[in-house]
């Protein structure tokens, strides 16, 4: 049962984490749903700013370091979901699942991010609305 709830919550996180982008403009005008990607890297910067937060990952592949931009939700929705600007820190390792930008840049819309200790990062952005308090 608990596993079922966890799976459901994960699914909700995946489904709704892109909605803040969708509020600001259509998801499909920027990202490609047919191009999912998983990246593992180290956070080098966090921009807790409107209309959407960004954080940047140093990803090392075959000894070469590449910086990727990761886009998340709006600061206000993240705040109401319990996240703070220091919930993740520069230097932490994170694995990001998301979708690639259509323009071919090193930019990903984050659907899920998991820190090294297993904590999910910046998900559940729509809790405020889904629960309809």
């Amino acid at each position, binding site marked *: 049962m608990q596993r079922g709830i966890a799976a459901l919550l994960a699914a909700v996180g995946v489904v709704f984490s892109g909605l803040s982008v969708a*509020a600001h403009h259509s998801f499909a005008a920027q990202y490609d749903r047919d191009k999912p990607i998983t990246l593992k890297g180290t956070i080098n910067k966090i921009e807790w*700013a409107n*209309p959407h937060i960004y954080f940047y990952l140093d990803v090392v592949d075959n000894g070469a370091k590449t910086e990727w931009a990761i*886009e998340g939700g709006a600061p206000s929705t993240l705040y109401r979901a319990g996240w703070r600007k220091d919930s993740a820190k520069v230097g932490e390792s994170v694995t990001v699942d998301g979708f690639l930008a259509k323009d071919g840049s090193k930019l990903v819309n984050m659907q899920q991010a998991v820190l090294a200790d297993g904590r999910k990062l910046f998900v559940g952005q729509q809790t405020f609305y889904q629960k309809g308090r």
Partner: protein
Amino acid sequence: MAARIGVVIGLLLTLVVPAAAQTAAPPDLSGFWINQYTPDLSAVLGKQPPFTEFGAERWRTVDTAKDPTAICLPVGPSRGFTAPFPFLLVQHDKMIAIMFEYQAIWRAIYMDGRGHPDDLADYPYFMGHSVGKWEGNTLVVDTQGIDERSWLDTAGHEHSAKLRLTERFTKTGDDTIRWTVTYDDPVYFTRPWSIERTFTRGKPGDRILPYTCNENNKDVEHLRPNQPNLKYKHVPEEKKPGG
């Protein structure tokens, strides 16, 4: 006996008159309210709105990369109440102010009996010019002069400068408002059409948070043309007999 009846009538009047006066006072809609996120109005309607030929062609070819809010233009009155961001409503006898978290923008609803200005078409507002009145316990707001660059929703339903919104706000409980909005735009739609949404009161202490769209709007550099409706086939509504 007559004196006793008089006393009873007098007592009844003291009870009834204040109650009647209270009933006449409009409900207080003030507070922190949470919208129902509605990125596509047709999903609520259950079908596409009754497009004119022109409106249908605009919908078929709309490019969502050209969304006005993507470049931080104001959201317009329809999207303000359907975005996933809350708003504050402050009610006064002669004025109702609505302050949206989304893009930190506001609407003023003039309640002093005025109409729309004569030169409104020359000086449109992104959020429109709104006048309101009470019909019983329902606030009825008429909005015109809405800048045609705004969209009705994220999906890309557009409108012309002739759009007229009629909104009805009815408290359905201490913590809920039923919002019914009618879209009347002869350029885009063959007839007025409506949707209904519910606003839910936030918790005590909830506050509006910053939303400064220009602060870090990096998205705009990455938008690419996106026309999701190119296969849309317009089927005009059948005219009702005698209509």
